[in-house]
């Protein structure tokens, strides 16, 4: 493994990645690619899962060091589960995001992981929160993160509309992931998409060869 690590800032396996989440009319769409890399040149996994369920209607996308992200989401799952037992009701999306933010902020010197938390709760409906590297927490309607996100800021700004339908939002998310994976070498594999609504959770996996193709592909 040592020979694969050049001078990457993340030690060990990194999820150089593209992750996104967007609110539509009645729910959220959360998506990610599936590539994990070591250094800048070795793909250690083509099928890593970056959309992690932390509660029944709350999901988390991970970016940064895979080890740190997995450890943090494990701790977050435990805290949320405990919180929901104490409150005797499902946690709010902001609770999940705050748990992650606390872990990231208190240990910001040692950790290298960022998250997008998205889900549905009874009080505020569908929400998307981003927890950045140092522990900043922001609520947004649509958000992108990871190394591949730099290539799709323009697309997101131009194409996102509030109150889209579920199908429109799924297409928007798939296109965004496809564009990012097309340009970022550390994003790739399949596109994992999860749709969370009041009724439930739906997983959509788009294999690499079924992703939409754009000009010059």
């Amino acid at each position, binding site marked *: *493994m040592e020979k694969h690590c050049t001078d990457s800032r993340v030690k060990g396996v990194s999820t150089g990645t593209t992750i996104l989440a967007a609110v539509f009319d009645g729910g959220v769409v959360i998506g990610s690619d599936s590539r*994990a890399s070591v250094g800048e040149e070795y793909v250690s996994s083509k099928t890593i899962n970056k959309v992690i369920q932390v509660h029944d209607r709350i999901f988390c996308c991970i970016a940064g060091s895979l080890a740190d992200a997995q450890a943090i989401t494990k701790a977050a799952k435990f805290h949320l589960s405990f919180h929901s037992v104490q409150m005797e009701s499902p946690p709010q999306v902001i609770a999940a995001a705050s748990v992650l933010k606390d872990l990231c902020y208190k240990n910001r010197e040692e950790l290298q992981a960022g998250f997008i938390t998205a889900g549905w709760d009874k009080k505020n409906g569908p929400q998307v929160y981003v927890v950045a590297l140092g522990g900043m927490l922001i609520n947004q309607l649509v958000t992108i993160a990871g190394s591949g996100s730099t290539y799709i800021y323009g697309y997101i700004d131009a194409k996102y509309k509030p109150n889209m339908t579920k199908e429109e939002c799924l297409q928007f998310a798939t296109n965004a992931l496809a564009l990012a994976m097309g340009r970022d070498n550390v994003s790739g594999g399949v596109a994992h998409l999860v749709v969370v609504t009041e009724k439930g959770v739906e997983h959509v996996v788009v294999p690499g060869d079924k992703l939409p193709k754009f000009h010059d592909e």
Partner: protein
Amino acid sequence: MKTGTTIAGVVFKDGVVLGADTRATSGEVVADKMCAKIHYISPNIYCCGAGTAADTEKTTDLLSSNLTIYSLNSGRNPRVVMATNILQDMLYRYHGQIGANLILGGVDCTGNHLYTVGPYGSVNKVPYLSMGSGDLAALGILEDGFKPDLELEPAKELVRAAIQAGIMNDLGSGNNIDICVITKQGVDYIRPYRESQYKDKRKTKYKYPPGATPILTEKVVPLKLEIVQETVQKMETA
């Protein structure tokens, strides 16, 4: 972190096949030609280790002890995912200082599983995998030959070929190939599965019988010891 090793694992129809080479290197010297890299974790779970030999050995030993205690306390057979979680917690706590790249494979009540745990504590669930310095050579064979739901013999042959590729193309891997097949019925730990065809046959026996070396002179020096202090402790057996 030394990774002179090729280890591989494949999930097949009835279980999991793990394979490893048997060379342990210390710098440029082969320290052990018949080293065991497939470690016992529990009756239904085995673990291949690449990386620093001491780290993989101790980590898997610790895991095995903890899982045995857990089994006794809870009355349940351990699951592969539990072993993976324990390993992940342990390795993450040490932030990569423990140089252990592990492939955990086993069969439990939820099915046949293969997991990889990295030294920083990252976990990935996979149908096939190779690790160690010979991983890229072995991975080529696995990528080409793997199909879901293989039968036992093709699965063993695939793992053997993968380790063979690692041995042929990597200086840090070599000697024999060990295979461990885990199914619901039990474990078949075949050591060695294939012997190296480059094994040298010794020309004569190098064991000398007692008396083979002639004694030229003999000098006996009795050691005089003085009793300095004597204490008596009665043992209570009532």
